[in-house]
């Protein structure tokens, strides 16, 4: 099982386990719906590996590996 959202393969889904607190960039991701306990899935990767497109709460967002690597996941 991959440890962070950045490693989650395209097409699979997982549950957000933990995110470090107090980081401004992660607060915005939380506000977009990614909070611990939420199911996320990876829809695709851009041709050159970044950014990734994810689906959370039925909304599609994209972010870079740098941010995704902060988001610890566990099996869905």
């Amino acid at each position: 099982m991959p440890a962070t959202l950045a490693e989650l393969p395209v097409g699979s889904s997982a549950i957000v386990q933990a995110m470090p607190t107090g980081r401004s960039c992660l607060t915005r991701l939380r506000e977009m719906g990614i909070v611990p306990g939420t199911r996320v899935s990876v829809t695709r990767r851009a041709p050159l590996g970044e950014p990734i497109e994810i689906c959370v709460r039925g909304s599609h967002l994209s972010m870079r590996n740098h941010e995704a690597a902060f988001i610890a996941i566990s099996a869905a």
Partner: protein
Amino acid sequence: MSAAAAETPLIAIVGNPNSGKTTLFNLLTGLKQKVANYPGVTVEKKIGECYSQHGKKLRLIDLPGAYSLNARSPDEAVLRDVLLGRRPETPRPDRVVCVVDSANFERNLYMVSQVLELGLPTILVLNMVDVAEQREWRIDAAKLTEILGVPVVKTNAVSGQGLIELKLALSREDISPPKWQDAALPEGVKAALEHSRDEMRQAGAIHTRSSLLEPLYLLSDHDPTHYGIADTQIGRIHELRSRMENDFPGWEDALVAERYRRIEELCAQVLKRPDQEIETITTKLDRILLHPVLGFVNLLLVLGLLFFLIFKVAEGPMGWIEAGFGQLGAWVEGLISPGDFRDLIVNGVVPGVSGVVIFLPQILILFFFIGIMEDTGYMSRLAFIMDWAMSKVGLNGKSFLPFLSSYACAIPGVMAARTIDSPKDRLITILIAPLASCSARLPVYSLLIGVLFPVGEVGAFVQAGIMLGLYSLGTFGAFFFAWVFNKFVMKGSASPMILEMPSYKMPALKSILLQVWQRARMFLVRAGTIILGISILIWAASTYPKTAGDDSAKQMEHSFAGRAGKLIEPVIAPLGYDWKIGIGLIGSFAAREVFNSTMSVVYAVESEDDENLAPLRDKLAAERRPDGRLVYTPLVCISLLVFYVFAMQCVSTIAIVKRETGSWKWAMFQLGYMTGTAYLLSLLIFQIGSALGY
């Protein structure tokens, strides 16, 4: 404020970006809009009027799109401040229309819940119901009204569905405050916020009747430039925040999680959606448009179309505008008796106005194109595909299109940077945009390359190669400076690249055309006045003081412009230029292509047709210095070409940069760094080249 305006209710339209909020606003108000900037920030303020179903006048304000009242950008700070009644020039709205993208219902509820807590009478608009239906998302509007205590209207802003119902809801004056309970704050955080509120009240940073929400949102905004309050109070807010973070680490994140817990509870009651995501037009299109190979092919096609429209299709109207102004000049020439006044009109004002209006076709086409791309949802895909490349120089995918547009003309490129929401990335994009070789440089490149390598000798191949080299040099320079600014000049941490991928939808043409018109008018009024003024100045500089004779070359030498050319000769001589080239450089500050017409005057070359460069080119190639050496040696030509690649020589762009960044500071910084780089590189090329014996 007049008494009448006070009686007219002010209704704020708020919502997430891509919720179709502005389209609804445009549908409701049409041309009855006023667009300006909020004082002190480059955030657009749009106020419009419409009439209720009972014929009562309503004022609508379209507030910036945002994901949260925890502001992370100037746009979001304006939204928060207007809703809290913190902006002195904008009254607190009487009612709020909260526009929701139904196909992203749960995520949109985040800000909805924040807005409901403010306690203003609110109408909830479930927009894009058609897209939600495609996804088989069913939202129970009646239940939503029951739980939240607010009117709920379903609309489709593209087709106009639900507009009557929305107007009926807007006409209601009996809307009671929403039932949504304030976010439950942990006891300690609540006590700390109450303490902060007392301190802020004493400092006069917030008004005395403020709820806990105002200190809450101020404390969670990390950028003090957003507050719009005195510096001493900013320091206080900083202290309060540090204390909060010390005492309750992660308090903001806990609040977000709590809010989503309540949103999940609400969704369980009002939203039914399939377990597995349904195949929609969006998922099918994305499989092609974001395909590793087909996605790139499509991107190239889209950009190819854009360039075809800007360069080729715009050519026609630009020709008509030029011809029209030419005729106007000729007509005025026959109307007024010869003299300085006629000269001013014919050679100063008419070409000055013409030089502004000529950009209009390109600006209209570009903004129409951008409008379609944004409205359909393709713009996010473009940013998604290009993000990796742009991230290498510290920018993000959204900078790509404004930069690319600058190859046609930096003016629309700089204006298009408004689509970038990170202020830092937006500023860097604006600063580097004019390094893209715009179409005004093309005539100068052609002329000088023609002098450097006459076609007969080496053929068009080498010419094209040099042209390509110049474009590459500018592009490389732009990326280099983006990297430098990102690394060393700009303060503030990089904001994360979080890009929403909205569902594809049909563009709302009427709304797009309205926005195109607003941009065009803004350009004509703001840039036009400055450009016209400078054109008259340059005319005066080359007209006075007068010589007795009729010889235009003599007149040029005698005029202020000629004297200025001689004055700057010591500065530009190390670059290999003489005072005549100096006049051309000065003239280029009106617009770069003016170099060609100025040099025609300087060398008294009679040419029937601006397009035909041959007479001027031959004259330049034969021109010698007083000591008999050629003026335009290959080394001088290369030095000049490099100068034109890098130098900031366009008052129109300077005027627009000043407008879009909100101050002269960045416009002057840009002028300085670009022209400084141009000077240094040209100096190096000429000096090293000379030393090597070229």
